[in-house]
C-alpha cells in the first residue's frame, strides 16, 4: 500500500459495450469506488478497448449511450486509463480512435502494472 488506508484498485475491462452488461456495470462500480478516495485505475484490453471508441450512436438499439461517462471520470479524479496496444492493433484501432485521453501500454507493461495492484476487479 502506498499510503495509509489507500489501496491501488484496478478495474480490468475486457468486454465490448452493449452486447453484455459488463462494461456498464464496471462504470457503475468505478464511480462508487471514486467516492472512497482510493487509487483507482482502469485497464482496457481485448474487446474492452471497443468501450472507448469514438462516435458511439445507440439510438437505433434503444440503449443508453454510456460512452460519454468515460470523459466524465476526470471529474471524479479518475485519470488513470490504460489501454493495451496489442488489443488496439488487433482491432484496427489507434489512440486517435478513442474518445478520451489514455496511456497506451504494451502487453508486458500492462502485466507489470497489474502486478502492482492491491485489488483487481475484472469485468
Amino acid at each position, binding site marked *: 500500500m502506498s499510503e495509509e488506508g489507500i489501496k491501488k484498485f484496478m478495474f480490468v475491462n475486457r*468486454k465490448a459495450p452493449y452486447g453484455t452488461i459488463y462494461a456498464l456495470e464496471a462504470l457503475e462500480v468505478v464511480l462508487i469506488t471514486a467516492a472512497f478516495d482510493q487509487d483507482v485505475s482502469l485497464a482496457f484490453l481485448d474487446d474492452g478497448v471497443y468501450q472507448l471508441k469514438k462516435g458511439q450512436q445507440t439510438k437505433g438499439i434503444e440503449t443508453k449511450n454510456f460512452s460519454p461517462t468515460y470523459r466524465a471520470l476526470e471529474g471524479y479524479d479518475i485519470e488513470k486509463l490504460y489501454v493495451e496496444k496489442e488489443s488496439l492493433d488487433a482491432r484496427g484501432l489507434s489512440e486517435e480512435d478513442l474518445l478520451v485521453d489514455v496511456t497506451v501500454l504494451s502487453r508486458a507493461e500492462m502485466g507489470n502494472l*497489474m502486478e502492482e495492484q492491491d485489488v483487481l476487479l475484472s*469485468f
Partner: protein
Amino acid sequence: MLNIINKSPLSGNSLDSCLNVATGGEILLIEDAVYAATSGSSFEKKIREAMGRFRIYALLPDIEARGLADRVIEGVSTVGYDGFVDLVVANRNCQSWL
C-alpha cells in the same frame, strides 16, 4: 499474483489473455476452465508451455464433476476448496479473469 480462470479455453479468451498479459505467478483453473487442464484437448500445448512461467492448479471437485479426473495433465496440481483458500492467502493479490 493468483490468476483465477473459470471459463473453458475453447469458448472464451480469458485463459489466453491471462497467459499473454500476466507476468507469472500462479493460475487456478475452476469451473469450466478445468477443461484446460486435461490431456488431449487442443489447449494442452499452451498449458504445457505456460508451466515454465506459471504454477498451474485445477480445482479437483470441478474436474471430478466433469468426469475428467483420469486425464489431468502431468504437472498440473489439483487442489480442493481448502487448497483454493490457501492459494488466495499465499498471494499478495489475485485476479479473476472473467
